[in-house]
């Protein structure tokens, strides 16, 4: 069994309630931080832990915290990003539903470190039943002196509020989230200024993912150095992976970042293999926006080394032959799945979720969707494949926020690795509407990935 740091007590009955959580050592890390450490000492532990943002970008959390501006007399805010909307990702939902006090304890320690007295949990609107769970937990924490004024006699004050969104993927982007929290459309802001300087209501703000903030609790419990001994290299600690698609055991798993992709998919401890005795065709290991990999490149890198569940190993080979750990939304496709159809659903998703500010994204996502729909419906032309490649290249890097990139990458990777399947759809339109292509013959990724002359 892999070592657990977040889910180590998840099996205890009633752990979602204050009394059980506290009786099992809960709020011990907060007690240690608030009573025996200065904010800078806590920050130091987080830096030593090597913790990287668990929302998808993987930016070092300690470094992000150290950027927060501290002008005299201006409030600072911590915002917990619970907008979890990346297709394939449902880990934060599990944490909030079943371990709400772990998150609250993490928010308390993080707010103390950053010097924030108000903290907002921005949760996606569709998770409509979770705010009740969180608010009950907040009320219980407050009743027991862990929130409110003069927490545990330390003189530190903190209030936590839960705010629901209303159905917009883009609000997971930190500046769009801040706009939404201010009661506006979720249009991302141009950076700089970064939220650490000018965020919520123009005040210094840190926005972190749910899992990131919850992880601060075990870091304080065992110490940053000890935490960094978990995992591999710069991928320290454990990561929550939400596994879905054609596997035997979909669900949320905590893994130590030292196991192979093969072990994760096939071992009974995790996904339990491909469902219905089918073969693995492809996988999107980090949420819909990261490049899809065919089975051969997923299990082994281009160098022939086993692919590991770490930030570095999944990214090995760059986009030509690698992918990203992203948010840990692990989507598995079996041999009966159609890459064109799958890519079409993602293109439709990003078109639906584009905020519309930047024309490359607003127009390009809809264009890609329409071209993919034609190919899927047997009305595609060979030139459409190159057209798709061309459109995605013109979106990537040309937008205010990373939604443009997120929309471009799945299309690019599908063509890079499964060009043969796209061509088959175009050449056999009748057949393509009746059956699936099956396992890929695999395009040569290096050849396709070479940039076309511009």
């Amino acid at each position, binding site marked *: 069994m892999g070592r657990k740091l977040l889910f180590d007590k998840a099996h205890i009955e009633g752990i979602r309630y204050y009394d059980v959580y506290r009786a099992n050592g809960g709020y011990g890390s907060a007690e240690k931080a608030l009573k025996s450490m200065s904010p800078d000492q806590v920050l130091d532990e987080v830096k030593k832990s090597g913790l990287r943002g668990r929302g998808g970008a993987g930016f070092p959390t300690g470094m992000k915290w150290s950027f927060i501006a501290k002008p005299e007399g201006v409030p600072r805010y911590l915002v917990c990003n619970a907008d979890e909307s990346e297709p394939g990702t*449902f880990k934060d939902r599990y944490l909030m539903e079943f371990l709400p006090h772990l998150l609250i304890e993490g928010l308390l320690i993080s707010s103390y470190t950053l010097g924030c007295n108000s903290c907002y949990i921005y949760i996606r609107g569709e998770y*409509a039943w979770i705010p009740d769970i969180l608010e009950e937990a907040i009320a219980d924490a407050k009743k027991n002196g862990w929130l409110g004024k003069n927490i545990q006699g330390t003189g530190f004050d903190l209030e936590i509020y839960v705010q629901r969104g*209303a159905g917009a993927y883009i609000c997971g982007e930190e500046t769009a989230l801040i706009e939404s929290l201010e009661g*506006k459309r979720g249009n991302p802001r141009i950076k700089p200024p970064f939220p650490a300087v000018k965020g919520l209501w123009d005040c210094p703000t840190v926005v972190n993912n749910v899992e990131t903030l919850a992880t601060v609790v075990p870091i304080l419990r065992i110490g940053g150095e000890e935490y960094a001994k978990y995992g591999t290299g710069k991928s320290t600690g454990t990561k929550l992976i939400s596994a879905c*698609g054609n596997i035997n055991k979909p669900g*949320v798993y905590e893994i130590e970042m030292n196991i192979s992709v093969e072990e994760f998919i096939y071992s009974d401890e995790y996904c339990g293999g491909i469902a219905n005795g089918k073969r693995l065709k492809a996988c999107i290991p980090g949420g819909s926006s990261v490049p899809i990999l065919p089975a051969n490149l997923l299990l082994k890198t281009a160098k022939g080394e086993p692919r590991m569940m770490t930030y570095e190993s999944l990214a090995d080979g760059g986009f030509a032959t690698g992918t990203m750990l992203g948010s840990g939304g692990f989507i598995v496709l079996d041999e009966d799945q159609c890459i064109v159809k799958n890519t079409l659903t993602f293109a439709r998703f990003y078109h639906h979720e584009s905020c519309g500010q930047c024309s490359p994204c607003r127009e390009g996502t809809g264009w890609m969707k329409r071209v993919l729909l034609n190919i899927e419906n047997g009305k595609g032309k060979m030139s459409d494949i190159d057209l798709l490649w061309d459109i995605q290249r013109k979106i990537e890097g040309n937008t205010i926020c990373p939604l443009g990139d997120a929309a471009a990458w799945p299309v690019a990777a599908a063509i890079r690795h499964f060009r043969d399947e796209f061509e088959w759809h175009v050449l056999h339109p009748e057949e393509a509407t009746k059956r699936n292509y099956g396992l890929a013959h695999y395009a040569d990724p290096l050849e396709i990935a070479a940039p076309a002359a511009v």
Partner: protein
Amino acid sequence: MFSEEKLNKVKEIIARYPAGKQKSALIPVLHLAQEVSGGWLSSETMDYVASLLQITPIEVYEVATFYSMFNLQPVGQYVFEVCQTGPCMLRGSDNIIDYIKKKLDIGVGQTTKDGLFTLKTVECLGACGYAPMMQLGKHYREHLTPEKVDAIIEECRSKAN
């Protein structure tokens, strides 16, 4: 439009933000307004929300039109919001959508003649491991099969009667 209880709730929400930042309450208050207005927001309802928060109506419209959870047209008493994004598609959401269409004799975006059901397709709701799924009111219905859909329809009908 709001009851005394809902007005107190609005006050409580506004108190979460610094003075003068009551516009931040807009999305939570629109959720409340939609709840008490049959599941959708008319321009009268939005104007009422604007007056409550002391902001201009256009500030409400631009937000209500941006977020997909706000319905700007009347909807049925029960709205089936079926996810159709990749992970749900891989687990057969297309069949579920087709089944609901046939069963209720409506297309996507339509409401049954008795005003009971509306079918909507939505993008990823974060339940990928429990696919196929749909949102029904405040809760998720997961691991959908035609039999489960039948049971849900029956359940709604019996509650409505």
